[in-house]
C-alpha cells in the first residue's frame, strides 16, 4: 500500500519555475504546498567556495550529486536533476523576449503567434525580475520596452566593455549592459557580486539560485520539499479527467510507493521531463498520455540556434577584468518591417582567444620560459579579441518531438525521453539568409573598429530549449491555455519552458519564470488568492 501525502497544491520539480510558483502562492494564498523533487540537495552556499576552487583547478563539477545516473535521455537536454534544477548552474542572463516574439505570424507571416502579447506578460516579467533580483540597464525604449525600472542598477561596465561600447557606438548600433540575475546591491539577504567571474558557481550568493527561495519558504514553514522522490505517473480521479495523485517513489526505497494527493497539480519539470511525465502517465482514458487528446504533447520542441565569431580589434584590452559581463543589443530582434524574415540579438564579450600563452610560435618552434612570455606579449600588444554571438529564432516543426524511448529505461524500467529536434521548413529556407545577414552585421561591426573577423561559426544546438506542451487558445494545436492550464485536465498546470510557442532570440529563463507567475496567478485565483 502507498504512503499518502496530501496538500492543496502539489508542484512536481524544484527548479526555478517551481520556485516562482511556490513563492507567489505562499505569499498570496493559505494553500498548503508540497514540492516533489527527484534530485537532492547539492553544495550549499558555504560549500561553494571550495567546489569553485576545485572547478577552477581541476574542472570538477562544482555541484556534487546534481544528477540521477539512470535518469537520462537522448538529445539536447540538461543533465541536472537537483534541488534548484538547472538554474543552480545557470549564468543568470535574463533578457526579456521582444514584443515581436509573441506575434511573428501577424507581423512577418512565419511561425505562430502566441495566445498572449508582450503587454500581457510584461507585469510578470517585472515580477520575475523582482523575485530573482535583476540588475539591468534600460536600453532604447523601442527595442527594450519596460513599464518600471530594473530592481537594481546594472553590473558596471568593465574597462574592456566600456572601450567596446565606444566602438559599437561608432558603428551606429546601440548596445547596453546585459541584464543579470546578480546582485549589484544587497538584495533579499544575498551578497553583492564580487566580480570573481565564475558565475556557473557563485561563492558569494550574489547570483540568484532557486535554493535560496526554497530555503526561505522552508524556514517560513510555507512549503514541504520532498527530495530524492521521482514522480512516475499522474493518476486520474476515477470517472473524471481531474488529476487525483502523483505516484512517486523515494529513490532510496523504490519498492515503497508514495501517493501525493492534491487539489491542484503543477508540472514544473522543465522542457524535457514535463512532456515525458505526461506521456508516461497514459491510461485507458488517455491512451496517448495525459493532456494529449489532440496528440500535441511532446511536439514543437524548440530553442534557438546561434552564429558566433571572434573579432580582432586594434585596441588595448585586458581580458580577465570581467569575462562574465557582456554587452547586448536587441535592435535586430525588433527590426521593424522586413523584406525577408530574420531576427536576432547580438552579444559581445571580452575574450583572450588567439591571445593566450602557447608552447609553439607561429612557425611551430618550441618556446621556453621567457620566450613563451615574449610571444604572448607580442600578441596582446598587437590588439585585442572580442567574442560575438547572435541567437536567432528557429521555428519548430510539429514533428520536432519528444517521445518515450523503449530502448533506454531507468532502473525502474520506465522509458526515458528521446528528443529529435526538427526545424520547420520555413526556418531551413531562411537559414542562409539568416547567416548572411548576421555575419554581415558582424563584419560591419568589425570594420567600424578598423578590425577584422578572426573566425566565425554556426551552431544548431537548440539553446534554452522549450516546447512539448505549447500554449494556445485552440486545443487542436496546443496542450495548455495561456495560463498553463492543460486543456484536458482542469486541475493540471504545466509551467515555464514546455509551454512556449517559439523561443525567440533571447535567453529564455526569465520568460519561463514570467509564464510560471501567470500560471500561479490563475492557480491562486482558484484558491481564493491571486
Amino acid at each position, binding site marked *: 500500500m502507498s504512503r499518502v501525502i496530501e496538500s492543496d497544491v502539489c508542484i512536481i520539480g524544484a527548479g526555478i519555475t517551481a520556485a516562482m510558483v511556490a513563492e507567489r502562492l505562499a505569499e498570496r494564498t493559505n494553500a498548503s504546498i508540497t514540492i516533489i523533487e527527484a534530485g537532492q540537495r547539492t553544495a550549499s552556499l558555504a560549500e561553494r567556495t571550495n567546489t569553485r576552487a576545485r572547478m577552477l583547478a581541476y574542472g570538477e563539477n562544482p555541484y556534487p550529486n546534481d544528477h540521477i545516473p539512470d535518469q537520462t535521455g537522448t538529445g539536447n537536454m540538461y543533465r541536472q536533476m537537483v534541488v534548484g534544477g538547472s538554474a543552480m548552474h545557470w549564468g543568470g542572463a535574463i533578457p526579456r523576449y521582444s514584443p515581436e516574439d509573441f506575434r511573428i505570424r501577424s507581423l512577418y507571416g512565419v511561425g505562430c503567434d502566441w495566445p498572449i502579447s508582450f503587454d500581457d506578460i510584461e507585469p510578470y516579467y517585472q515580477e520575475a525580475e523582482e523575485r530573482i533580483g535583476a540588475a539591468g540597464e534600460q536600453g532604447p525604449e523601442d527595442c527594450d520596452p519596460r513599464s518600471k525600472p530594473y530592481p537594481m542598477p546594472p553590473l558596471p561596465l*568593465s574597462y574592456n566593455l566600456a572601450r567596446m561600447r565606444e566602438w559599437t557606438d561608432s558603428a551606429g548600433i546601440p548596445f547596453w549592459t546585459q541584464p543579470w540575475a546578480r546582485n549589484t546591491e544587497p538584495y533579499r539577504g544575498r551578497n553583492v557580486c564580487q566580480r570573481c567571474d565564475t558565475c556557473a558557481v557563485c561563492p558569494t550568493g550574489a547570483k540568484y539560485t532557486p535554493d535560496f527561495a526554497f530555503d526561505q519558504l522552508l524556514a517560513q514553514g510555507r512549503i514541504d520539499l520532498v527530495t530524492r522522490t521521482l514522480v512516475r505517473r499522474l493518476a486520474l480521479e476515477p470517472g473524471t479527467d481531474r488529476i487525483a495523485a502523483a505516484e512517486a517513489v523515494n529513490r532510496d526505497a523504490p519498492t515503497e510507493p508514495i501517493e501525493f494527493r492534491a487539489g491542484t497539480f503543477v508540472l514544473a519539470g522543465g522542457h524535457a521531463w514535463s512532456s515525458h511525465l505526461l506521456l508516461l502517465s497514459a491510461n485507458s482514458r488517455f491512451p496517448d498520455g495525459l493532456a494529449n487528446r489532440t496528440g500535441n504533447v511532446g511536439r514543437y520542441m524548440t530553442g534557438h540556434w546561434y552564429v558566433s565569431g571572434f573579432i580582432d580589434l586594434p585596441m588595448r584590452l585586458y581580458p580577465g577584468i570581467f569575462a562574465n559581463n557582456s554587452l547586448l543589443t536587441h535592435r535586430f530582434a525588433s527590426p521593424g518591417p522586413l523584406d525577408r524574415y530574420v531576427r536576432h540579438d547580438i552579444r559581445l564579450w571580452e575574450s583572450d582567444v588567439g591571445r593566450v*600563452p602557447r608552447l609553439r610560435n607561429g612557425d611551430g618552434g618550441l618556446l621556453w620560459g621567457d620566450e613563451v612570455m615574449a610571444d604572448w606579449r607580442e600578441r596582446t600588444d598587437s590588439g585585442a579579441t572580442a567574442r560575438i554571438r547572435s541567437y536567432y529564432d528557429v521555428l519548430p516543426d510539429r514533428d520536432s518531438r519528444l517521445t518515450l524511448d523503449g530502448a533506454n529505461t531507468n532502473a525502474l524500467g520506465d522509458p526515458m525521453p528521446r528528443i529529435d529536434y526538427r526545424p520547420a521548413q520555413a526556418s531551413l529556407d531562411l537559414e542562409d539568409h539568416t547567416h548572411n545577414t548576421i555575419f554581415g552585421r558582424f563584419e560591419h561591426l568589425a570594420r567600424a573598429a578598423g578590425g577584422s573577423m578572426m573566425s566565425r561559426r554556426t551552431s544548431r544546438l537548440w*539553446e534554452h530549449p522549450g516546447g512539448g506542451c505549447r500554449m494556445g487558445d485552440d486545443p487542436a494545436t496546443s496542450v495548455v491555455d495561456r495560463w498553463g492550464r492543460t486543456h484536458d485536465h482542469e486541475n493540471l498546470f504545466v509551467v515555464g519552458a514546455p509551454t512556449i510557442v517559439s523561443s525567440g532570440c533571447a535567453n529564455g529563463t526569465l520568460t519561463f519564470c514570467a509564464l510560471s507567475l501567470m500560471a500561479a496567478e490563475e492557480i491562486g485565483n482558484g484558491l481564493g488568492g491571486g
Partner: protein
Amino acid sequence: MPRSRRSFLKQSVATVAAASVAGCAPDGDGESGAASDGGTRAGATGTRASPLPASTLRAVGEAVLPAELGDDGRERAVAAFERWSDGLEPVAELAHPYLVPETRYSGPDPRPGWAAQLQGLEKECRARFGSEFGEIDVAARRNLLAGPVGQAGTGLGSPSNAGHVAVALMAHFFRSPTATDLCYGRVIAKQQCRGLDGALGEPVHVAGSEGGAP
C-alpha cells in the same frame, strides 16, 4: 624603497583577498601559479605527499618557467604546482557541458607517469653527462626536454591533460592569474574576488612595469 614587481603582486593580491566578502574564495595565494590551488575534495582522503621528485621538478622549472620570475617566483610557481598535483583526483566527475545529458569524468592519474618522466630525466642525464639534471645548464636541460615536450601540440591546455610533466608545469603557471598580470604588466587579478568598484578603471600597472609591459 622601490618595490619589485613580485613584491607588488604579492601585496596587491593580499589586498584583494582582504577586501573580499565572506563566502568569496581565497583563490590560493595568487602568486602561486594556479587560479586556485584546489580546495578540498569531498570524500578525498586528504592531502598526499607529492610523488614528484622535488629537486628534478625544480630543475625542470628553471628550464621552462620565465627567468623574469626570479628564483623566488619560480619556487612559488613550482610549489603551487606541487600543491595542485597533490590535490588532483583522477576520474573525478567533471562539470557538465551545456545541454549534454551524459556525465563526464577526468582521466587516469597522470602523476605516476610524470614521476617516471622526472626519474627518466635523471637517468638519461647521468648516462649522458654523468651529472644530475639540475647540474647541467639550462640549454642542455631544454635539449633533453625538447623530445618529449615536442610531442605536445601548440596550446597550453589543462595541466592534468598534459602528457609530460614539463608541459603540465608550464600550463599550470602560464594559465594562472599571476602569469596574466605579468604578461600585461597590469594587476588584472582574474577570477579573484575583486568587488565591483574598480571594474571600469584601466588596471593599475604592476610596480616596475609602468610605461608598458615589462
